[in-house]
């Protein structure tokens, strides 16, 4: 199977070649801003020869419908990977020659979920669970590919791409005359009338159904093929089709007119002749080579792979490897940078801590963590104790606290018997007018930062509440 599907998208210009009666019809195609412009060129033109020799342009051609094969296959798997295992076998059954003797590819696949019964071209199948994968297969005998390459070489041309004629005609017809909205179900028939051959591509809307090589008695053959390919279920056939004509043969007005008339009687519909029909196929293969799109294929593959493509594949492989290598190096570099930054930050933090601890303690503190804090605190405490009296001079006076406590007494009917107060402790005992007024004093003292508790009891004599607010004794004082 073809492993390199890209055609010549990596190059900006190419020569599309259609061999008509053994003579090459050449167009030069140039890609500009996503569009391809084609100009007819003589095979004897020096620019054609020089362009190919210089490597700035490549030559692309096609295998005719008689030299190749295309058909839709259906595998009973929704997964393409599973379907790919059986598609070659299904193709082998369809081919008139051995699969091993040909180059083949599956250029388009569609997955279809199935529910209930499925019906394919009039045949009813048993109920199917899951889905199917439909694939468009193209194939050509190696012998035919070799012959084609040698035929091109007789003209001094070494085509990089060998397309498939039927697919090329179909996609170019859609490109030059797109599907009109509302006619997605209208059959389109692209007929290439060549000098020594004819080809027909049948489809519906934008979807290709099949491509066929036409013999000399092509009217009957066309009719038969259309009946077979466009037949709906229940024996109906489409009455309205879109005829697209191209190829050098449309220039023969008498023959072309007769053909049109015969076919239109059985298959009426619109009839359009593509612009510049004599170079249509050459334009088709060139456009498909330069622009990405559906149904692209290159049958010059496997052992026939053009050296230029082979080098391209190698370069891309190397580029991919380099990309992965760069990604790997980048990830490693990011991680190393991260580790470095983290260690630097951590070391910086540790240095700051050591420096500050040493400064506060007045000597180097070897301990770490909580031990270091304890050492520094132990070193600082004596000095703090010495300096406390100096700070006391600038703190609010204790009188303010006393004043606040006595104000509360006036406002809340509290009679103090004893009041002992310092910055760390307070003990108040006395009587209150009611139970709640003790809480007012308690809350006020707590708000001022005293850790106090309240004891109170009813006094039987004057119905006043006897209370006592004290600071419980703790292990050490905290300032």
């Amino acid at each position: 199977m073809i492993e390199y599907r890209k055609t010549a998208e990596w190059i900006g210009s190419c020569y599309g070649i259609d061999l008509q009666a053994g003579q090459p019809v050449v167009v030069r195609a140039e890609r500009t801003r996503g569009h391809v412009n084609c100009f007819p060129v003589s095979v004897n033109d020096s620019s054609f020869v020089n362009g190919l020799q210089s490597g700035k342009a490549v030559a692309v051609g096609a295998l005719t419908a008689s030299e190749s094969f295309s058909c839709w296959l259906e595998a009973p798997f929704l997964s393409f990977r599973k379907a790919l295992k059986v598609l070659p076998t299904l193709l082998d059954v369809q081919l008139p020659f051995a699969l091993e003797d040909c180059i083949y590819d599956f250029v388009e696949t569609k997955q279809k979920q199935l529910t209930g019964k499925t019906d394919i071209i009039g045949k009813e199948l048993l109920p199917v669970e899951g889905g199917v994968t439909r694939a468009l297969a193209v194939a050509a005998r190696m012998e035919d590919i070799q012959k084609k390459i040698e035929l091109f070489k007789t003209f001094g041309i070494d085509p990089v791409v060998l397309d498939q004629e039927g697919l090329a005609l179909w996609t170019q017809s859609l490109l030059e005359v797109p599907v009109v909205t509302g006619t997605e179900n209208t059959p389109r028939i692209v007929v290439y009338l060549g000098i020594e051959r004819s080809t027909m591509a049948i489809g519906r809307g934008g979807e290709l159904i099949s491509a066929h090589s036409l013999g000399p008695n092509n009217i009957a053959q066309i009719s038969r093929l259309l009946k077979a390919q466009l037949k709906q279920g229940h024996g109906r056939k489409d009455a309205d089709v879109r005829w697209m004509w191209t190829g050098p043969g449309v220039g023969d007005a008498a023959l072309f007119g007769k053909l049109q008339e015969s076919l239109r009687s059985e298959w009426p519909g619109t009839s359009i002749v593509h612009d510049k029909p004599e170079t249509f196929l050459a334009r088709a293969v060139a456009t498909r080579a330069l622009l990405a799109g559906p149904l692209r294929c290159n049958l010059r593959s496997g052992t026939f792979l053009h050296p230029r493509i082979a080098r391209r594949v190698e370069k891309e492989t190397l580029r991919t490897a380099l990309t992965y290598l760069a990604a790997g190096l980048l990830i490693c570099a990011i991680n190393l940078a991260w580790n470095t930054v983290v260690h630097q930050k951590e070391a910086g933090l540790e240095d700051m801590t050591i420096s500050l601890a040493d400064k506060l303690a007045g000597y180097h503190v070897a301990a770490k963590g909580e031990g270091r804090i304890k050492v520094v605190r132990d070193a600082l405490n004596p000095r703090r104790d010495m300096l406390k009296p100096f700070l006391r001079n600038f703190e609010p006076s204790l009188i303010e606290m006393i004043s606040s406590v006595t104000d509360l007494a006036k406002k809340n009917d509290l009679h103090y018997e004893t009041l002992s107060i310092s910055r760390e402790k307070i003990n108040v005992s006395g009587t209150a007018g009611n139970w709640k007024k003790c809480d007012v004093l308690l809350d006020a003292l707590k708000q001022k930062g005293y850790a106090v508790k309240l004891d109170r009891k009813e006094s039987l004599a004057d119905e006043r509440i006897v209370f006592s607010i004290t600071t419980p004794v703790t292990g050490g004082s905290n300032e």
Partner: protein
Amino acid sequence: MNENLSARILWLSAAVFLVIGVGMTVQNLNTTDDLYRRFKKKSGELKILRNMETDLARFETAKKKTEQIPEKHPVSLNGLLQEMFPGSKADDMKDSRKDLIDGWLIRQKEISMNDIPVGKSMEFVQKAESQKLPWCLTRCVIRAVPRTTGIGQVILTMEALDKTE
């Protein structure tokens, strides 16, 4: 052949570096929690030390400001007492001293007065505290006299800084 070898070496190197890179990333991600804890711990430690530094700076600033006061000795508390309560004296007075640093010492006096107007005793404290080198009230005990308002036993503990040199 050489090209094939180069391609293989390139792919092998890419695989090696990707594996190493992913491995390093996984390891770093796994150590993120531990890293966070370490940083949090160290930051916490530094914060505590900085708080200690700020706290100490407050004390040092207070000492510097005290040293800028021209007066180096506190007024006589006895003198102030005589001014506020002429003709009376404290029922009890205790005196103590304690050396501090740099030639400074702290003088502490405990004054006990019975049956004294509490409001007047607070005025006395205010006057003592308003001196340039103040006497600061550090503890106050007030015991009310039964069936009287505003009169009680007052015990004042006061401190003042004094420079010996």
